[in-house]
């Protein structure tokens, strides 16, 4: 193999470490030198993205196994290791993270003016944590990164946020923390169960996968994981932190929150909750799919009547993530591939939507829809970008949103026909709330004097919007490069899911009800 | 030869004096001194039981406690002086900002 073998061996570790190195480097820069601080941060995140392209280059799409694996003992006496790797499920989420970082940093050039140094340091720490979440294949390591994400985000909202930032930050923190504490308990239970069965302690996910967990245990562990991830996704009815957090967070925070943080929940379902506890996951499916469909409609309807643009986008996220959940719990290839793709799509589209909102917020310092109107005339370039993003969010064929939603519904239609039929009406409502918002902001006559003086997007803004627009069309027109790299992993996931489920159910009578399966003492 | 229970009794008495001092007195200086007395009470027990069992660990622990006590006294007195400079009192009933 040509290239730099050493780099290849430690590629994922480099990706985890590089932002931290950047954060450390910032500490040596004078705090008044805003321009230097921003540029250095941008260069670090850009380097991070370019390096992550190497992951795609090295990625073998034919295998379902973890790739670019690094495994070193971390706390050996407890069987805890530093194990990282990527497969088709995490590859694009990793790429999404590294892709969105330089973009948000660019957007923060103008939107963040106070405490620039601290802001950038938090952003870089956040980058490390997010990358870590997606590449960790050791439960303990995963949990560390999972919690590590909370802290910088808490400060990003709490320090650089809007008027009700403290409320939003605390709500965000506590909501997600409650879930993750339950997850920690479940992780420990799993850890001790592994010891009880095999006589060794480990938190290595791949080893845990091969464990057959008794069904009664699956129920409780899945329930704990479910809460942790459902809070994060967020699924209806655990979603109310999201509108507050999104609305109050600074633009860059909203973008990362939407693009990456929410995906941690859906990714967690796929990687942990579903993969480890297939029986419980199957039994929970009706509940989860129902909640997902309610979320789709509920998010869309409530988004429709919002007065604040960011809040509207936040509720639309609830609907979009409902689609992702629907896809994952279709439990077939199309649904899950669609779900993963839709995670990426939502990151691109909703991330871009927050950037768009940020652009006008910076100019007018308001997010109220009624303050705008007629902007198309004043801001033609902005209007174009906004329109493309709107269409992508609506899921118009030819844009990324359609491919994801289509595959999700195609897959889910097979397993949950009626749920999917109801969910599909969400596509109608998506058009209602997005177009209505677009109309009120962009169309009509300019009614406010100050809107006439708005300046169109500048070069920097175009520069960070352009990659997103390209991705919208790329995924929309030719999603093959993305889908093909998922195939093997998702197919293996579906197969293993079924096999593990059968293994865990061996010996239990057919047609056993959930009540008996989980709560009957068996005597 | 004095029997071990006697040492332990001495230890308990010293400890008791210290406790009473800590709980009952209002002067921080006295309280700090009482803490020292308590620590020394414990030291007596360590040394006595150590020698009774023929194990050096008790003695080592006593030295350990003495070291910590010295450090604690140094830090405590420094704080005390700083506190006195600010509040011009070392009466604990008047120093109750550490609440709610």
């Amino acid at each position, binding site marked *: 193999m040509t290239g730099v073998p050493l780099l290849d061996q430690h590629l994922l570790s480099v990706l985890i470490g590089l932002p931290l190195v950047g954060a450390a480097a910032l500490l040596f820069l004078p705090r008044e030198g805003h321009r230097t601080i921003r540029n250095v941060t941008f260069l670090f995140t850009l380097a991070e993205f370019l390096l992550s392209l190497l992951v795609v280059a090295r990625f073998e799409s034919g295998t379902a196994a973890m790739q670019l694996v690094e495994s070193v003992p971390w706390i050996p006496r407890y069987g805890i290791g530093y194990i990282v790797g990527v497969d088709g499920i995490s590859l694009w989420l990793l790429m999404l993270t590294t892709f969105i970082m330089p973009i948000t940093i660019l957007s923060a050039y103008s939107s963040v003016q106070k405490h620039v140094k601290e802001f950038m340091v938090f952003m870089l720490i956040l980058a490390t944590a997010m990358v870590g979440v997606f590449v960790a294949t050791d439960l303990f390591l995963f949990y560390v990164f999972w919690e590590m994400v909370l802290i910088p985000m808490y400060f990003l909202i709490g320090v650089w946020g809007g008027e009700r930032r403290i409320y939003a930050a605390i*709500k965000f923190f*506590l*909501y997600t923390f409650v879930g993750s504490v339950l997850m920690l308990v479940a992780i420990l239970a799993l850890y001790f169960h592994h010891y009880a069965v095999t006589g060794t302690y480990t938190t290595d996910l791949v080893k845990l996968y091969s464990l057959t967990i008794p069904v009664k245990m699956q129920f409780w562990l899945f329930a704990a994981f479910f809460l942790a991830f459902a809070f994060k996704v967020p699924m209806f*009815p655990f*979603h*109310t*932190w999201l509108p507050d957090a999104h609305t109050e967070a600074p633009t860059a925070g909203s973008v990362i929150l939407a693009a990456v943080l929410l995906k941690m929940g859906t990714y967690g379902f796929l990687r942990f909750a579903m993969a480890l506890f297939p029986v419980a996951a199957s039994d929970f499916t009706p509940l989860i799919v129902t909640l997902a469909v309610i979320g789709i409609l509920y998010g869309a*309807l*409530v988004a*429709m*009547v919002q007065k604040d643009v960011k809040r509207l986008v936040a509720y639309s996220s609830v609907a979009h993530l409902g689609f992702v959940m629907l896809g994952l719990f279709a439990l*077939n*290839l*199309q649904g899950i*591939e*669609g779900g993963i793709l839709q995670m990426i799509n939502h990151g691109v589209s909703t991330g871009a939507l927050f950037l768009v909102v940020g652009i006008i917020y910076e100019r007018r310092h308001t997010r109220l829809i009624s303050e705008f109107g*007629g902007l*198309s*005339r*004043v801001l*033609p*370039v902005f209007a*174009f970008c906004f329109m493309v993003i709107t269409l992508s969010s609506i899921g*118009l*064929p*030819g844009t990324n949103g*359609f*491919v994801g939603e289509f*595959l999700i519904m*195609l897959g889910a*239609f*097979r397993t949950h026909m009626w749920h*999917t039929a109801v969910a*599909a*009406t969400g*596509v*109608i409502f998506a*058009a209602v709330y997005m*177009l*209505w918002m677009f*109309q009120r902001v*962009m*169309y*009509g*006559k300019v009614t406010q004097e100050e809107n006439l*003086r708005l300046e169109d997007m500048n070069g920097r803004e175009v520069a960070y919007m352009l990659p997103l627009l390209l991705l919208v069309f790329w995924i929309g*027109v*030719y*999603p*093959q490069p993305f*889908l093909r790299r998922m195939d093997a992993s998702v197919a293996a996931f579906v197969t293993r899911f079924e096999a593990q489920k059968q293994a865990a159910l061996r010996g239990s009578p057919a047609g056993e009800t959930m009540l008996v399966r989980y709560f009957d003492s068996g005597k | 030869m004095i029997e071990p229970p006697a040492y332990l009794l001495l230890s308990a008495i010293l400890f008791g004096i210290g*406790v009473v001092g*800590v*709980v009952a007195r209002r002067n921080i200086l006295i*309280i700090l001194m009482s803490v020292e007395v308590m620590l020394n009470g414990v030291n007596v027990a360590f040394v006595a039981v150590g020698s009774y069992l023929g194990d050096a660990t008790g003695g080592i622990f006593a030295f350990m406690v003495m070291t910590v006590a010295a450090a604690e006294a140094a830090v405590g007195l420094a704080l005390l002086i700083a506190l006195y400079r600010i509040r011009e009192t070392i009466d604990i*009933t008047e*120093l*109750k900002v550490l*609440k*709610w």
Partner: protein
Amino acid sequence: MVSGVLDYLWLVPAFPLLGVILNGVLALIAERPFLLKEAGLPPPGGSHGHPSRGNSHATEAPGSHGSGASGPHSAPVYRNVVAFLAPGAVGASFVVALLCVLSLAARPPEGRTFVQILFPWIQSGSFLAPVGFQLDPLSSVMALVVTGVGFLIHVYSVGYMSHERAFARYFVYLNLFMFAMLMLVLANNYLLMFVGWEGVGLCSYLLIGYWYEKQSASDAGKKAFIVNRIGDFGFLLGVFLIFWTFGSVSFTDVFARIPLLRDSGVLTAGMATAITLLLFLGATGKSAQIPLYVWLPDAMEGPTPVSALIHAATMVTAGVYMVARSSALFLLSPDAMSVVAVIGAATAIFSATIGICQTDIKRVLAYSTVSQLGYMFLACGVGAFAAGIFHLMTHAFFKALLFLGSGSVIHALSGEQDMRKMGGVRRYLPVTFVTMFAATLAISGIPGLSGFFSKDEILWQSFSSPHGSPALWFVGALAAGITAFYMFRLVFLTFYGGSRMDPEVEKHVHESPWTMTVPLSILAVLSVAGGWVGIPASLGGDNRFEEWLAPVFRSVAAAGAHGAATGAHPSVSLEFGLMGISVGVALAGIGIAYFLYRLRTSKPAEIARRVPALYDLVYHKYYVDEIYEWAVVRRVVDGSVWLWQMFDALFIDGIVNGIADGVRSAGDRVRRLQAGIVGGYAFSLLAGAVLLVGYILYRSMVP
């Protein structure tokens, strides 16, 4: 080599796409600074005192000719480039399409299906939807109509839109529409068809809302998109059912698998009904049928060439095309066929009656379009798919012409659309008048003109086909009479009689430039002669049109063995009799119109006064919009507000904040224990130690 031409089929949609890209670049680079300057933005800079400052004029009339002090004379060069590029792209695509069709026609009838796969689009497991095109007799008719009429309307638009500021933007949308429409028509599978399907919906949205500063225009655009989306929802579910039933979404695979799956019992009649009704829901949205027709009349807010192209000739016929394309599936389900026929007939008569009372020239034409689309569905519903497509083609000619003609009138009258303020325009606009009159004769079904042949074929089939019935025929014939009536009402009100024009407007009335009149003339020729390709055997013709389409629909008949749709004509004399009746009804309609609007011009108002309730009902379009607004829109919005404020903010967040408050108030009480008195802490420490030691002692003594 002739067959080699077909390999360039992909160029047909590619040319308009190229046009989109080039014009888009021009719009963003050349037009943007020009527009900003013209609009007086940013502030310093001479706005020529035209209404850019929000409140000066309430509405900006469509085709607002007076608004730009800088008319076409100061037009920058880029406009000429756009004016050449946009129609040129469509023209090129017409030429390629024509060559491809000719080369297809050179093949034997059974081999006239050409499929070109470009690349896989969405692939996941067993699912595959490629970007692939299919040219067969059906799609070639559509491709030629779309590119041909599309090209004429592009040329017309150059003249019609010459006063518009956002010239390039208009042509970007129009080219994008051509691209999407060609994707729809040429797609070789349902999913790619859906791309075009939603794509044309998008362009419709953008073009209706072209004058986005006007509230009614952007409302209409939004309404069109959303109502279409309701239909698309059905289409999409239909595609899911098709895939999970047939294991493929490509047309050739699906239709080829029908016999096998039917025999094996996988494809039951119920399944076929479900699939086809879902697809038909999509068609009712796109083709403006009951109950989703409400968007089309409002769509007249767009520029008139757009109404001609999208809302008359091409996009709205996509539903008919799709149903005809899926004829093999529809024939499996007699129930679905009946639904299609009944909805088609009902829409035909329902919207024809609304057309009687409308005063806006474009709205009359809009309701007429809805009505004519109903005819096409009636044809499909009785199994006469070829007749439906035939009417689709002739309708494209004469309705495009009617819209373009009305556009010419509106253009000449400085944006006036109210027929009550027209009259006697014939003198000023001779070319427009003659061409439009030809189209009116055609739509009324006067023998010899295109509309006659297609409409008569539909009426005949609706009577004689196994799926048809005399009732359907009766409704169709009645609607034909009403159509003749309101069309002549339109012509009389607009072109005849004394002038009721605003004197100020009348001063500027002028015949349109050649870019507009030439397309009108070409379409007039097509409206007259376009039907001659489908003269039925009973009139001595050989119905070449049906013969051309036969390979598509014959294989259909074979697939649905018991649904022998296009059966032999039972009786020539019966056919002649029905033909006579329908011509008679049409002439009666014309006669009544002549009587009311030429002879007794006071009569209409008198009639309206005599039956006020009925008149009011029809004039207000049966209050359907109001009912929808009240029963659907308000319910949904109110419900959503309730969900947000009561459920989200009050209930869920109430629980969340309630827990937080509970914890906080508990802490509030407990914190009182922290009195800050060091002695207290020391005492509790001691007490704790004593208790602990006591407990340990107790445990060690009591076993």
